[in-house]
């Protein structure tokens, strides 16, 4: 017999000038995994902030009924007290503290303010076992990967006796393997009677674990689907409000001569000097070609791209870079840019944008020479350029004077992309170009990539989403542990083939 654990009724939340949520209804049954999906900016995160009390009761309309009683949360403490714990997309861990210290931060087992570390560590070990993380509780957060950090966050939630666990895009920055572990964990929690709300963009994950799916679009609930009705097509149709027969834009590749060739590229770790991260990579890209680099998290793809782009990563970099057959010097970012190489980062907030400045200034940053004369910036030309790229890449903002920090992930990505398009590169390296952005925006990014290829640019796409690589590239390199372990035409490739190359590569490397 199931009972409703949470009911959110007619939630309406307005920000100055924007109605973020209007009459949203969400009903979650005890012990289920309830997925909430919607495009970025649809209002999912706002809804969860209302639920967890980040937006205090009174700042929104509607009612929250949790375990039969109406709740008025004034802050996150109130909701946590009732067993509602939210794990945000951006992890809230302190990097220089240990796992134990993080799990019990603000909640330490102490007598008269003196912390009993043994008790805390014993409890931590038990919690880590529950989430299947084999790490010493004393390990610093900064020394473990994102996937493991995610597990620490979940352990932290468990320590608070969680009844309703909310995960905001938990697998956005996880590798396939870590994602699987996490989803398995959710299923295990379900057995133990913990209810979960899962916010995700990844439809295959929802297919795997969700009992119900609620779809939100433009601040409204569109529908809630039961397990038997869940299908990718149905979800996508509801999310974007239009049918989506083809998730990738069609393209007629016109491939020309080799533009970029990298020979025997080797890189060592910037701190652990004896660790070789990239081990003699050879790749090439042709004019008008989209080349994918597949691989698991930690395969060295980002490290390879960044070391290539002005030695932005690593030490003792050796190897040769040829542009149209001639060796070029890429030892600094500005030299790489001058030679027509651009790198669009996977981490737009840390490496891509000045979040406290507006769109216009961000777009022209990599090519200020293009809007200035004798180092004096031509304001009007800059404005024209910014408006032009805003239109070309369809950046949704009130104007080019909007702070990039206030944009949704998809629009931020378009700003970073615009910045590099304005630098007019011949070779464009895109690192996880669609990470954490919604289906509609993804399609727009794919369209831009296709257009650039047809204009004759050489494009390298690094992605952890194999269907994406299969859908948009012409040729795929498979990378594992710093080596290229496979190369295949996209037409002959499949997810199984790529995985097989990785597994075989693993055997070779050890």
């Amino acid at each position: 017999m199931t009972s409703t654990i949470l009911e959110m009724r007619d939630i309406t939340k307005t920000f100055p000038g924007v109605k973020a949520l209007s009459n949203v209804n969400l009903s979650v049954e005890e012990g289920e995994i309830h997925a909430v999906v919607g495009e970025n900016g649809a209002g999912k995160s706002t809804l969860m902030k209302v639920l967890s009390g980040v937006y205090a009761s009174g700042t929104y309309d509607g009612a929250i009924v949790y375990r039969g009683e109406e709740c008025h949360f004034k802050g996150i403490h109130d909701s946590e007290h009732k067993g509602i714990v939210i794990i945000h997309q951006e992890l809230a861990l302190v990097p220089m503290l240990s796992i134990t210290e993080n799990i019990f931060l603000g909640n330490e087992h102490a007598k008269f303010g003196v912390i009993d570390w043994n008790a805390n560590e014993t409890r931590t070990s038990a919690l880590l076992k529950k989430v299947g993380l084999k790490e010493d509780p004393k390990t610093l957060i900064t020394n473990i990967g994102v996937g493991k950090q995610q597990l620490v966050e979940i352990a932290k939630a468990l320590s608070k006796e969680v009844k309703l666990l909310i995960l905001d895009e938990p697998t956005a920055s996880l590798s396939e393997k870590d994602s699987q572990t996490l989803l398995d964990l959710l299923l295990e929690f379900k057995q133990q009677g913990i209810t979960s709300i899962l916010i995700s963009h990844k439809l295959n994950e929802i297919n795997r674990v969700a009992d119900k799916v609620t779809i939100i679009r433009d601040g409204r609930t569109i529908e809630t689907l039961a397990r038997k009705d869940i299908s990718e097509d149905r979800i996508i149709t509801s999310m974007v409000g239009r049918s989506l027969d083809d998730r990738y834009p069609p393209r007629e590749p016109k491939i020309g001569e080799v533009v970029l060739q990298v020979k025997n590229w080797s890189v060592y770790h910037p701190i652990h000097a004896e660790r070789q991260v990239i081990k003699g990579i050879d790749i090439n890209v042709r004019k008008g070609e989209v080349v994918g680099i597949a691989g698991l998290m930690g395969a060295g793809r980002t490290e390879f791209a960044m070391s290539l782009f002005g030695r932005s990563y690593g030490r003792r970099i050796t190897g040769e870079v040829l542009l149209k057959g001639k060796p070029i010097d890429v030892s600094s970012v500005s030299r790489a840019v001058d030679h027509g190489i651009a790198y669009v980062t996977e981490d737009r907030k840390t490496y891509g944008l000045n979040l406290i400045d507006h769109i216009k200034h961000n777009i022209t940053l990599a090519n200020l020479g293009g809007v200035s004369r004798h180092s004096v910036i031509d304001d009007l030309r800059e404005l024209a350029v910014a408006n032009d790229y805003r239109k070309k890449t369809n950046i949704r903002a009130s104007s080019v004077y909007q702070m990039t920090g206030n944009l949704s992930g998809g629009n931020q990505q378009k700003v970073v992309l615009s910045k590099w398009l304005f630098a007019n590169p011949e070779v464009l390296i895109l690192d996880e170009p669609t990470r954490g952005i919604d289906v509609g925006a993804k399609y727009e990014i794919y369209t831009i990539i296709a257009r650039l290829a047809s204009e004759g640019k050489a494009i390298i796409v690094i992605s952890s989403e194999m269907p994406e690589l299969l859908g948009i590239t012409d040729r795929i390199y498979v990378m594992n542990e710093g080596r290229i372990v496979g190369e295949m035409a996209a037409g002959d490739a499949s997810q199984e083939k790529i995985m097989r190359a990785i597994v075989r590569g693993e055997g070779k490397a050890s």
Partner: protein
Amino acid sequence: MSTEISPAPKSGVAEEVQQGPRVAVSALVTNLREYGLILALIAIMVFFQFTTSGTLFKPVNLSNLVQQNSFIIVMALGMLLVIVSGHIDLSVGSVAGFIGALAAMMMVIWPLGPLSNPLVVSIVCLVIGGAIGAGQGYWVAYHRIPSFIVTLAGMLIFRGICQALLGGGSSVGPLPDGFKALSSGFIPDVIGPLTLVPPTVNAAGKTIVGSGLTLHMTTIVLGLVAVLAYAYFGLRARRTREQHGYQAEPFTLFVIKTLVTSALALFLVYQFASYKGLPIVLMVMGALIALFVFVTKRMTIGRRIYAMGGNAKAAQLSGIKTERLTLMVFVNMGVLSALGGLIIAARLGQAVPAAGLGSELDVIAAVFIGGASAMGGVGQVIGAVVGGFIMGVMNNGMSIMGVNVDWQQVVKGLVLLGAVVFDVYNKNKG
């Protein structure tokens, strides 16, 4: 087929329509802080005008005010860039003291012959200031040693050298008149004075100082030319914007802004003209302010500094040489600290061991009152200048009122805290 997914959503069209008024409002909101700051300065000036029974705006006092505080503003220009780039420089007061001592030694004590000429000495001192900035900036930029630590060391080192150079506690002077003119001189009246009211003559046949009204005509003419140029360029900028089809700020707002600024400027010019004219140091300061406004608003290097302060990693990956840029920011700070030191020495007429002592705090306070963020990436030249004037007017006004120096510090501290709290409050609300 895929053509159904049109890249232009309906909501985008609605945004396009709203764009016009929203831009105007957002422009007003972003400028509100700057206007608010200027209004605060005017309010403080009016307050002291009353409490000092009219002394504050007396021509003599205005000249004093400028001469006493110009070095703070000159150094605040450099400090603004340091703080915008995400750093801090605690050494500026000590560097200023050291350069003042060095200049005095070169001009008065050391037998340098023709090289002890004030102009030569000043240039050498500015170069040495730049070298000091480079020395400190090197550690900050290329070895990533926190600027707080590097410049704290610099603060101790250069105060020590300053005192050692002056041989313990003694002062070195008097400095040549040609050098003192930097701080206490006025621009020459090439047009010739205009006497409106002849000075009263006393029984002994001597004129009474301060009586009558004689205007320094060069000052008046310069003031008028400057105000006209300001209005002309403002109008021209508006017109080019409109010709290119972009929205300029509302015309009434522009007119009010121009009129208020011009009236204020003309009033001050008149006050200066009725004394000895424009102080030379004011001209130097004005030129530097104009230069730094231009560099930060219009030049690529200025833009790069803001980008570096906003997100150093993103700036670096956009091809900006952040190390070299940091070094240059510190070199600039060093040169301006040296200029500050020369101005202090020229005003005092001698070098003293305590010259510039504690002034780094006034300089940093001016920049923060002016709205810069301690996190970097945010801050305006005009803000720092107005912040500097707020500090200066408070120093001057409270001194005339006879407020104890101890309590002056308390008041300044409260104003600094208040300004930043107001800023943060505004930001969170917005």
